[in-house]
């Protein structure tokens, strides 16, 4: 606007203003350069972190080779390190959390888009979003002081005495009832990622064109039939993408997990047994690792592995979410 106003009066209306000479074009160039720089900076930062982690972890990769990834040894005294237990713990807790969270998240999203009275949609939707904003340390303390004792005193003893006695499946539910452990960690993680998955599902459910649903209702379908045969097939890929987003968060969660997982470097068959995750090991061991030590290098190598894991999960989720988001 200003540019036009400063043009000489004689300039014909249709003529192109002389951009190169006007002061605004310098601003445009600067702005575009700044934006390019900002975009490039993010890429540079990401690359820098990956390279830094890899270089830092290199001594550990050199010392232990590829078996570092599945070795279950972690002995700071003799300086033998392996990522096996942490990777196992990270994946098992994250997958279990997804198994626990997805049905509930689906229920929440289904309720919010199809069943709830319109006046209730906003409060419940806001509550779900607020859950996502609770800092993870709060979940950690809540899990440690409330959930772990309940698990240890009531739920785990009951399950150990009943399901734990069964053949085969019983293996998963044996051992002393510590309260903490892989299962408790997965439970807390499930509560933490629930709002993310629920919010994504609600958003994609709302994208289904009403005419599809109305047609189905017109044919005499029940709400569940509409959900199963129209909404879910239409949004299937986006739903999976949302779940992957939740998985990504579960993989990297640190504080809450550290509080309740039991922090033992063992793989136990029982889900009630203690374990650890990559993030919890790094958080706990970092303060006591000396610079240049193999331990610090092993921790950085763990960080690199976590980065790669999260990257793969996020890449898959982006890929799956892509077509619908564009549409």
């Amino acid at each position: 606007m200003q540019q036009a106003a400063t043009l000489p009066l004689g300039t014909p209306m249709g003529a192109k203003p002389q951009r190169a000479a006007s002061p605004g074009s310098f601003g445009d160039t600067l702005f575009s350069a700044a934006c390019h720089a900002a975009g490039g900076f993010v890429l540079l930062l990401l690359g820098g972190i990956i390279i830094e982690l890899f270089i830092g972890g290199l001594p550990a990769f050199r010392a232990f080779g590829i078996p570092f990834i599945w070795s279950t040894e972690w002995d700071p005294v003799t300086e033998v390190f392996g990522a096996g237990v942490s990777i196992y713990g990270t994946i098992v807790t994250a997958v279990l959390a997804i198994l626990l969270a997805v049905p509930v998240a689906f229920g929440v999203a289904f309720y919010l888009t199809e069943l709830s009275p319109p006046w209730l949609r906003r409060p419940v939707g806001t509550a779900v979003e607020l859950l996502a904003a609770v800092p993870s340390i709060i979940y950690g303390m809540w899990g440690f002081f409330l959930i772990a004792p309940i698990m240890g005193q009531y739920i785990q003893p009951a399950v150990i005495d009943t399901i734990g006695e069964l053949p085969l499946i019983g293996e998963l539910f044996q051992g002393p009832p510590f309260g903490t452990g892989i299962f408790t960690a997965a439970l807390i993680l499930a509560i933490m990622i629930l709002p993310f998955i629920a919010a994504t599902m609600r958003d994609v459910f709302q994208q289904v064109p009403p005419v599809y649903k109305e047609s189905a209702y017109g044919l005499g379908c029940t709400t569940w039939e509409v959900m199963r045969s129209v909404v879910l097939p239409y949004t299937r890929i986006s739903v999976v993408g949302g779940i992957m987003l939740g998985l990504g968060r579960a993989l990297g969660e640190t504080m809450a997990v550290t509080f309740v997982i039991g922090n033992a470097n063992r793989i136990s068959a029982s889900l009630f047994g203690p374990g650890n995750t990559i993030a919890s090991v790094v958080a706990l061991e970092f303060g006591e690792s000396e610079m240049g030590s193999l331990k610090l290098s092993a921790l950085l190598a763990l960080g690199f592995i976590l980065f790669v894991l999260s990257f793969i999960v996020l890449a898959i989720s982006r890929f799956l979410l892509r077509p619908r988001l564009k549409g």
Partner: protein
Amino acid sequence: MNRRTLLGHLGLAASGLTLTAPLLPRPGLAQQAQITGAGASFPNPVYQKWAEAARGAAGIALNYQSVGSGAGINQIRNRTVDFGASDAPLTEQQLTEANLLQFPSVMGSVVPIVNIPGVEADKLKLTGELLADIYLGKITKWNDARLVELNRELNLPNLAIAPAYRADGSGTTFVWVSYLATVSSEWKQKVGVGTSVRFPAGTGARGNEGVAGTVKNIRGAIGYVENAYATTNKLVTAQLRNKAGRFVAPTQAAFLAAASSANWNVPGMAANLIDQQGEAAWPIVSPTFILLPKNPTDATRSLNVMKFFDWAFRNGSQMAQELEYIPLPSTVHDMVRAAWKAEVKANGQPVWTM
């Protein structure tokens, strides 16, 4: 707050200053010297207490960050702080490499805590061998024959033992496993000693509060915390059998008895106080250490660090005891001062000349 009351407060504060100023032995707030330290979390409460008291009394403001011994060692190696603090003593070789002087500052003790229904504080009797076997996962029930034999007067239940340990690397773990390794050769072989080790059994928690919380939560749990933490939180501690074969409860007298018989004349002043002789000695006592550069880049700051600890040695024993730490014997204080004079030099001249 309006202007008048503000002025009133200022006036009060000023008059307070003039009143107390003549009582202060050293210059007050205006000439406060800043020093920084980082490292061990085990002695953090007493360092903070000393720092608070020394600010007014000695005119030295200490900023101590309890980041963990490992991080503290890193920082003093890079000389980003004036002194480092570590629970585990550095070896002579490590000290020479980094050109550091190591001296003890205060001692602490570690105590076992338990949660067994019907068992009160200091009633349960344990031995080092039993503790090691519990933490090795070899004794799994509280009514194990070996435990019952020692505790005939207690009615130990048929309950699974849940050992809890520090999951974060810590000086408390170092002291605890040093003891287990001293009394059990199997522990020494299978697990070893360090600020974090591979515990064969049990569950890990973060910090003293995490271990205490786990023990409180789980019936049948056993854990270890530094004594200060157990006392202030009224945790259920247990008796231990010492080297002399006596069962002792974790009390100040028992800690002091352990400290009195130690030999400090060793490289790095790293006296071993674990499982000491003495009828009344508590077996798990350990000094914590300060690391000071032998070639300080800033001699004044280095001198202020020494002044700070000199002040703490003279005036801080009571404060340390209030926080359930064990002050060093005065002979050790003199040894430390002699070491300062002999070893910390700037331009060839000793920094500490008192």
